[in-house]
């Protein structure tokens, strides 16, 4: 009978987000082959990644500042991009380019009516770039970036709600906006970062 294989994705994630020692990988494999479940394996891997990230964050305050600032700047860029997309057709008319719109050269209606999905795609892209180009402390960088997106977007939404400048005309209600802001968008950034590590180069070189 061939030995059980641990979840490959979990091992890959562990090796590319942290630099686990041979000892830790051996202990995980031994326990898994000894009868522990796949769920147990995943929980151990997530625990190891979280602990590594927290340790790295505690070691470098400069990293925290840099990644948080990047998150804030990218949130501003995304917000401006979305605003520009939504108001692009109006802008054409205001600037005297109504002819373009009337002849079908405006933005597709689906783009203006689904700004949150465009934002989600942008955050996946940003997260991917952050995860791909992080040279050191990848677990901390990816996690911090997702946290920075969460904080920046929450602050931005709070500001817009407080200043009554939220546009509900696009068919999104407040609950949907909050869900996108505090759940979907940070998860998109996290997904992008993790994807970049999984499908990027193997820097630790210890994958089985």
């Amino acid at each position, binding site marked *: 009978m061939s030995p059980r294989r641990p979840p490959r994705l979990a091992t890959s994630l562990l090796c590319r987000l942290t630099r686990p020692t041979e000892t*830790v990988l*051996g202990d995980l494999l*031994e326990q898994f082959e000894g009868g522990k479940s796949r769920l147990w394996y995943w929980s151990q891997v997530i625990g190891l990644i979280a602990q590594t990230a927290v340790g790295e964050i505690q070691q470098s305050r400069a990293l925290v500042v840099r990644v948080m600032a990047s998150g804030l700047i990218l949130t501003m860029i995304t917000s401006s991009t979305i605003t520009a997309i939504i108001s692009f057709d109006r802008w054409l008319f205001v600037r005297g380019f109504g002819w373009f719109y009337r002849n079908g050269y405006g933005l597709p209606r689906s783009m203006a009516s689904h700004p949150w999905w465009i934002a989600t795609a942008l955050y996946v892209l940003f997260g991917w770039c952050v995860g791909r180009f992080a040279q050191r402390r990848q677990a901390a960088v990816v996690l911090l970036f997702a946290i920075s997106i969460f904080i920046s977007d929450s602050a931005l939404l709070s500001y817009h709600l407080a200043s009554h400048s939220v546009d509900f005309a696009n068919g999104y209600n407040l609950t949907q906006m909050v869900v996108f802001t505090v759940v979907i968008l940070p998860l998109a950034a996290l997904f992008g970062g993790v994807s970049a590590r999984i499908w990027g180069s193997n820097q630790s070189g210890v994958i089985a």
Partner: protein
Amino acid sequence: MARQHLTDFELMILLAILRIGEDAYGVPIAREIEQTGRRSVLLGAIYTALDRLEENGLVTSSYGDPTPERGGRAKRFFKVTGKGLKAVKDTQKAFTALWRGIPQLKGGTT
């Protein structure tokens, strides 16, 4: 300055190593804490604590030979040092002193 007393998790790890003896590496240490301490543990937490204990000179570690059931990876064995043993005794004394004279705990813990 080094800490004087151990955390409860560090104490559990040191006691687990002492109970296991020669064969104390990550897997049996985790198993011992789970079975005796009746709590689930993360390997990452154990290694973080073990690294800290080694930094403070309370344990030492050495590598064994690679074994096939571990995918050819070596085990890291741990031993409690004299300083570690003293820390365990000091912590026990501190706990015993705190235990004494509490009316609610007299005649059992129920």
